[in-house]
């Protein structure tokens, strides 16, 4: 007993140290991140993308849904020069040349560039909603599981196993069939009606979100749990507990800040997965409702004609690549900056 009381004060000091060290840790991380050029480029690209999505109406030169059927698949001259396989109609080929469109027009004569600009809204929303949902569900789940330990932990982790094995794609397809079909005749009621309305208002994105939410949180939950388990036994936590600090406070004030780094890294690095999931859903016809543009939908439509009009798939794919590239490098940069195991490597 005597030893415990003796130890407590030193631990308090340690906590203070840990906290002040924590602040400098974030500062250090920021310094490290700033030195990483590629991570910064990533951050700038993401920022530009956000600006593009927010100010889409100002940036897009044309209305994204305005069709000019006579100029279907029209392509500007410079695009023909990069894709030698495309031959202009005045040279005996099949491509209508028109410089009215910066990157060309799609099969209904709509401006590709404007659609890419508007399409960034869907991709970014998917990215942020995916990351947010996975963190909001995964972190509390993992914290509780890891902190409480024992049977609760075991039970919660087995539930994660179950969710891993659960066929999420099946669930999404069935959800979409159910809600989109029961919109019918305006006679749906209650939650069905509400969800259908949200789906309609969001251009069909709500179920993509639900799908991503359902499948994405387990990884974060596992990670958080592992980190919590490791942190739980640390001396300063034991000390805080012995001083009568309540469980929520311990979790919130002492454990969470210490494990946030790896969580942020993982959340950032998983974002590209959500973006490509949207593209996959578009490929199987479960993406956003037309005419709302999304990069995934544009890519899968363009891919069908990729031989004839490569620009229609390549440009949105390029946009997708840039954003995924940005998130990847930002994530890697964050990892190098934040991950404690990587510290001291320089």
């Amino acid at each position, binding site marked *: 007993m005597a030893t415990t009381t003796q130890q407590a004060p030193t631990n308090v000091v340690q906590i203070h140290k840990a906290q002040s060290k924590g602040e400098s840790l974030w500062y250090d991380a920021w310094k490290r991140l700033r030195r990483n050029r590629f991570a910064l480029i990533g951050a700038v690209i993401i920022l530009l993308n956000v600006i593009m999505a927010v100010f889409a109406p100002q940036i897009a030169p044309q209305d994204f849904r305005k069709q000019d059927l006579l100029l279907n698949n029209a392509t500007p001259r410079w695009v023909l020069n990069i894709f030698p396989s495309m031959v202009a109609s005045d040279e005996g080929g099949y491509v209508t040349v028109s410089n009215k469109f910066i990157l060309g027009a799609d099969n209904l004569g709509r401006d590709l560039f404007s659609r890419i600009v508007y399409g960034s809204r869907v991709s970014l929303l998917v990215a942020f909603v995916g990351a947010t949902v996975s963190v909001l569900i995964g972190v509390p789940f993992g914290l509780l599981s890891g902190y409480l330990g024992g049977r609760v932990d075991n039970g919660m982790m087995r539930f994660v196993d179950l969710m891993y094995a659960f066929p999420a*794609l*099946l669930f999404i397809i069935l959800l979409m069939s159910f809600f989109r079909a029961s919109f019918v005749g305006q006679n749906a009621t209650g939650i069905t009606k509400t969800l259908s309305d949200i789906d309609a208002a969001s251009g069909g994105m709500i179920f993509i979100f639900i799908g991503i939410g359902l499948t994405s949180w387990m990884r974060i939950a596992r990670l958080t749990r592992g980190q919590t388990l490791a942190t739980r036994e640390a001396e300063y936590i034991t000390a805080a507990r012995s001083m009568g600090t309540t469980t929520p406070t311990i979790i919130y004030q002492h454990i969470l800040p210490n494990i946030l780094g790896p969580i942020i890294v993982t959340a950032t690095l998983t974002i590209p997965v959500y973006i490509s999931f949207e593209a*996959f859903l578009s490929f199987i016809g479960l993406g956003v409702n037309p005419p709302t543009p999304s990069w995934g939908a544009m890519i899968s439509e363009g891919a069908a004609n990729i031989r004839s009009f490569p620009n229609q798939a390549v440009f949105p794919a390029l946009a997708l690549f840039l954003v995924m590239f940005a998130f990847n490098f930002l994530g890697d940069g964050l990892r190098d900056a934040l991950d404690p195991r990587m510290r001291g490597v320089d």
Partner: protein
Amino acid sequence: MEGVSVPLHNCLIRKIDQMLAFVLRRSMWMLVVLFAVSIVTFFLLRAVPGGPFNTERGLPPGVLENLEAKYGLDDPPLIQYVNYIVDITIPRLTDGSFRRSFSEDYLINIDLPFGDERALRWMNFGPSLRQRSRTVNSIFQDNLPISIELGFAALAVALAIGIPLGVIAALKRNSWFDYSSMGVAILGVSVPTIVLAPILQWIFGVELKILPVSGWGSPEQAIMPSFALGFAQSALIARLTRASLLQIMHEDYIRTARAKGLSERVVVAKHALKNAMIPVVTILGPLAAALLTGTFVTEVIFGIPGMGKFFVQSITNRDYTVVMGTVLMYAVFLVLANLLVDITYAWIDPRIRYD
């Protein structure tokens, strides 16, 4: 010597014991998971609109009732479910007069040495409701091996691209090499198969005519699809290799090896790489599962008769039995992959106990 080896030996035995108990416990849990997945899938399928017998022409009166009666779909859902589970789980003894039929086609058939022409038959997943000359078992037998081949070929490609890129990136950290290797890896993960696959077909199939555009069976037919599928996963491997190798390169024993005057090449190849591969090995399980389940797009574009398309198309067709069979099979893969990871972790890292 004796005194040292005995406790070590005991320790190993205890560890193996623990592991066996762990595997047993988790296998029991796997059954629970499969059971839960089957219930949810079964009733979800029946809750949404659409049925297996919809056709564009619409069915004349009476036909639908006949079809549902033929497949037992006119029973209450609970009875249907119980029948389904019984057909799968309860083994049957049959005699010589047994004949494989549409409603009785077993995955596991074991001839028994006693009695006359007796056999133990187990796991009847039922007939396909859409393809009326195939059972779920025949789909497993014809299409699953192809998906597994494709999955492993893609895994090989992912490793072949990912590991070298990761090693180069780690060794030349923060150099031009690092960024371009990671750039290539990210290119892999961000160019959707939907775009990559037709471009490959165009270049190698149509323009250069050195690879067949589509199909499955010969080695050269496997090259493009396994690349299209594996390239995306190589990014994950590259990143993991890089991180893991970076960490290892700063461990004490590597410093020691360096201090001993070994060349950098030997240090990396002999000491660092081996240990750096451990985290990579642990993700092979889930990766293989992901490659196995993520083959839909590749299969459609390259015309490969694998399982991937059943997962999407059978849902679209409301082919209840095929959906159930596919979902259960994938669930087994996923659960096994996770179990494998947990075992590997615990085996490698003694601090983690099997509990």
